[in-house]
């Protein structure tokens, strides 16, 4: 599979739609665990990304699409997820050099770098009930499979691993971020960030499946 800047743009625009659909759910999760704004923040952020993408229609470098998306997300939202997802997008972009066409291997390093970027900024680890509970299993699964499995199949497995991770956050006690002060009261609700992270990777899978 070959993906170019235009593909990435279309993928990101699908995320914009997906977040818009799910924003109330994301905020609802955050009302239970935090300050209730996660859906609002994701929506503001991806709307800013969308606006940025419209300015970049002629852009050829995938890196520029990704790092611009990250920066406009960050500048629009701040918040906790701003630095996290922005670091992901920026690291993902930087991993691609000046490429205009991504091979399967590039797509692999885009996403492992994305997770590396988030992880680097985060300070959290698996089990802390955060975004990383989705992203680390996703990345580890990607690493465990190889090119020979076929790109869609690889992502399908990885997204499944991310999904389990996301679902497991329901029974976790939060260790980081706003919800960490709830102690046991944080158990019983899925982590909003883990849920939005799942939307991001799941939408990527659907997108490449549709190609």
């Amino acid at each position: 599979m070959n993906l170019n800047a235009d593909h990435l743009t279309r993928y990101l625009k699908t995320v914009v739609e997906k977040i818009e659909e799910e924003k109330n759910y994301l905020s609802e999760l955050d009302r239970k665990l935090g300050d209730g704004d996660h859906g609002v923040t994701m929506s503001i952020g991806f709307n800013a990304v969308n606006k940025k993408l419209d300015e970049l229609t002629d852009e050829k470098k995938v890196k520029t699409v990704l790092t611009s998306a990250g920066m406009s997300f960050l500048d629009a939202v701040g918040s906790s997820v701003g630095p996290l997802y922005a670091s992901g997008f920026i690291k993902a972009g930087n991993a691609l050099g000046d490429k205009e066409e991504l091979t399967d291997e590039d797509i692999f390093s885009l996403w492992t770098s994305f997770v590396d970027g988030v992880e680097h900024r985060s300070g959290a680890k698996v089990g802390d009930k955060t975004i990383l509970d989705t992203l680390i299993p996703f990345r580890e699964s990607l690493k465990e499979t190889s090119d020979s499995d076929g790109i869609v199949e690889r992502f399908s497995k990885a997204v499944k691993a991310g999904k389990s991770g996301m679902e497991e956050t329901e029974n976790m006690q939060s260790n980081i971020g706003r919800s960490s002060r709830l102690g046991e009261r944080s158990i019983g609700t899925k982590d909003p960030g883990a849920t939005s992270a799942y939307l991001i990777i799941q939408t990527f899978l659907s997108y490449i499946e549709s190609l």
Partner: protein
Amino acid sequence: MKKLINNPDNVVEEMIEGYVKAHASSVKMLENKRSIVSTKPTIENKVGILIGGGSGHEPAFLGYIGEGMADGVAVGNIFASPPPSPILETTKAIDKGAGVVYLYGNYAGDVMNFGMAADLADMEGITVKSALTSDDVASAPLDEKEKRRGIAGEFFVFKTAGAAADKGYDIDGVVRIAELTNDNTRSMGVGLSPCYLPQTGEPSFELEDDEMELGLGHHGEPGIKKVPLGTADEVADELMTRIMDELAIEDEEVAVLVNGLGSTPQMDLYILFRRVEQILSEKGIKIYRSYVGDYITSLEMGGASITITKLNDELKELIDHPVDCPAFTQK
């Protein structure tokens, strides 16, 4: 949810616009529209004080720009840390060669965004140091104090660190004061009724008619537990017990802040204060200064918090230092 707003997506922008027009002689907005700085020329070589965090806490943070408090504010979305770029712009605007101190509450988002901004400022050759507030005793056990969040106690940190900068302390001195104030400060609150984010229109939490949330965070985060609504005296007793347990006070005097979260009548705040004063006076502790009112709010949330800061002579002098901000003036 009933609000006097226009498009919910524009509340922060429109609030800032109104704020800057209302206090045009005191504050101005930088081009990015999220950096607000004092119009008064900062004294050369004065350490810059930058405060900030999400919106929805008005009069915090932008109300505290002025002589004796902050030189600039970076304004985030509602309950969301500002991103690095307006923090950086504010930093550049207020640095007078003596460096800038960032004062903000200990929240994951703020730590990351202010941290990134500090790195960027460093790359531009501006010395930035940060001091975080973590006064909420309900937010983690004492042995994990580094996990605690900042609530209304931030006001005292702004007050003393702002005064220190105004008095010519150097950057390390200002940080020392901010940290000392934070170390000497404990707060705890209760929530009686939720606030509503303009964009979701949903209540931030749900409580029965006879319940309150003990240890509530300043963004509607759940606290320790839901308990039956107590009288003002019972609430003050409960909060004060947890606060005073951690403050080993010998002969020191204290500063008291009874802070309303948004929709609590001042009547109730003064009734709470009445009991706080009784408790301290029974313990033989003297109140050096009292503050009662809406200092750091959560939109229209119902409830209040109590903050006690133990004062040494240096902090007393700084607490007494005059302030002239749109939201708070002290002679």
